């Protein structure tokens, strides 16, 4: 059986400029932040990011890595709007494909099922269809005389044809994983992480701890192993790899650190100092700097 263990730096080395990259988690929750910092340090550029956006999107925008973001929001949860995202948008520095949260889900599902689109009611009548003029409607082929029409109100209706959101790569952080790429999420919500992996050509996990194949059930019930190894190509151990976002039950959100991250967006010098200490450094140095900060 293939041993899929690798490192954060080697995963970043697999990625290329111009790629469309999906990032798991939701808002400021279980984001693969060690990988995101790796992307920020790399020479990659012109990335398209697909995400239920949080500080992953904010950091990548601040680092100038992003051409376009496909999202419904970019939030820090306890802070409504990521201020780096606000800056990037109000300065016109990034393109956005802004869609309904459910449309994002539907688009990832279409990609994972290898169909070109899936129909949804979400988006109809809204400006999502005018700010994204490439989106199309689809008419139900089942008319009033079809034996399949359960309710005549459904006959011939127009729905949004949400296109498949195909990803070149997906990045996801889990609580545990095994050496062959099964992933375990011990928190009550896996968000759309398995779907991000399913929608991608290259599928990368980071995890708090790698255990032997067959022993994830020692960590939690089988139902928490929501990512099977058919969905993954490589896995890197990265303790604290979701810091400063929430990653229960391993750790909660580091609210004080998040405040510092957000405040630094208001001033270029402050941001440069923050980035020197917490972005442009190795993972070991990052952990040491966070520890020093906590101790002070």
């Amino acid at each position: 059986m293939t041993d899929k263990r690798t490192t954060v730096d080697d995963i970043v080395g697999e990625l290329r400029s111009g790629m469309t990259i999906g990032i798991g988690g939701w808002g400021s929750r279980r984001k693969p932040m060690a990988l995101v910092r790796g992307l920020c340090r790399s020479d990659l550029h012109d990335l398209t990011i697909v995400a239920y956006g949080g500080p992953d999107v904010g950091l990548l925008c601040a680092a100038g890595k992003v051409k376009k973001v496909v999202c419904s929001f970019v939030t820090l949860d306890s802070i409504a709007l990521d201020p780096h995202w606000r800056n990037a948008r109000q300065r016109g520095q990034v393109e956005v494909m802004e869609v309904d949260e459910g449309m994002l889900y539907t688009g990832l599902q279409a990609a994972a099922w290898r169909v070109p689109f899936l129909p949804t009611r979400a988006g109809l009548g809204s400006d999502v269809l005018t700010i994204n003029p490439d989106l199309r409607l689809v008419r139900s082929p089942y008319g009033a005389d079809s034996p399949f029409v359960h309710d005549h109100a459904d006959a011939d209706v127009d729905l949004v044809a949400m296109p498949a959101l195909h990803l070149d790569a997906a990045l996801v952080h889990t609580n545990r994983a095994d050496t062959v790429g099964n992933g375990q999420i011990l928190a009550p919500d896996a968000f759309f992480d398995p779907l991000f992996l399913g929608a991608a050509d290259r599928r990368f996990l980071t995890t708090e701890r790698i255990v032997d194949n067959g022993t994830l059930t020692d960590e939690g019930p089988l139902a928490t192993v929501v990512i099977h190894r058919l969905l993954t190509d490589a896995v890197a151990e990265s303790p604290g790899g979701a810091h400063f976002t929430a990653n229960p039950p391993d750790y909660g959100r580091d609210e004080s650190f998040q405040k510092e991250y957000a405040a630094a967006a208001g001033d270029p010098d402050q941001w440069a100092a923050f980035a020197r200490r917490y972005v442009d450094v190795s993972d070991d140095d990052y952990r040491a700097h966070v520890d020093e900060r906590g101790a002070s």
Partner: protein
Amino acid sequence: MTPAAPQDLPCTRAESCVIACADVWRDAGEIMVSPFGTIPSLGARLAKSSFAPDLVLTDGEAALMVGAPPLATPAAELIREAAMPYKTVFDVVWSGRRHIMMMASQIDRTGNQNISAIGDHRQPKVQLIGVRGAPGNSVNHPTSYWVPDHTTRTFVEQVDVVSGVGYARVAAAGAGATRFHDVRRVVSNLGVFDFETPDRTMRLRSFHPGVEVDEIAQATSFALSVPDDVEETRLPTPEELTLLRTVLDPGSLRDREIRS
């Protein structure tokens, strides 16, 4: 002199708003209620603990919670009855068994809501939180709005980016859009509004105690329908006031959202 019992104190504006929100879910039955903001959250809990006991509330994370605990209850003390991760939330949204109360940075005459951006969407003057689930919510299940700062900047002739869909836009989008569309009510710090007019434009349903109808008209950028017999928002019952003041929100978090 003995201090006045909580229910004997005059009803504050924040409390009128809570009552107005609670009444949005009267007779809703067994549906999921998703309130955004302190006052709608208190309204939902008040409704669930009194006249709408079958309502289903989430813990704000990934579960349904038992009962209607006080607003400031620590997460560790909540009792949960079922899992409700985001993926399941979409199952509920698209099944229609939900009535959300979202906030609105702008709302207009036909009930369009904007939470996406002010100005040109390509490079907004002000980036807002994003459309979130508003487009899908508004065409799938009953949707109401909470606007804690009723001014001509929030109640506008036409919103900049239609996030939640109003009546005129949904009609133009066809039968697939209108089928489950139901923008039910708008509660602001000044009054309660609905769209129960022949042309589905906004109507004043009630004004909060202490507010003049003229004050509402002046704070609204468009011509509001005002029925001749429009009444004051109902006062809370003594039981409701006691519940709100002593059980659900003894720390008066409601006054941080709406000052009297």
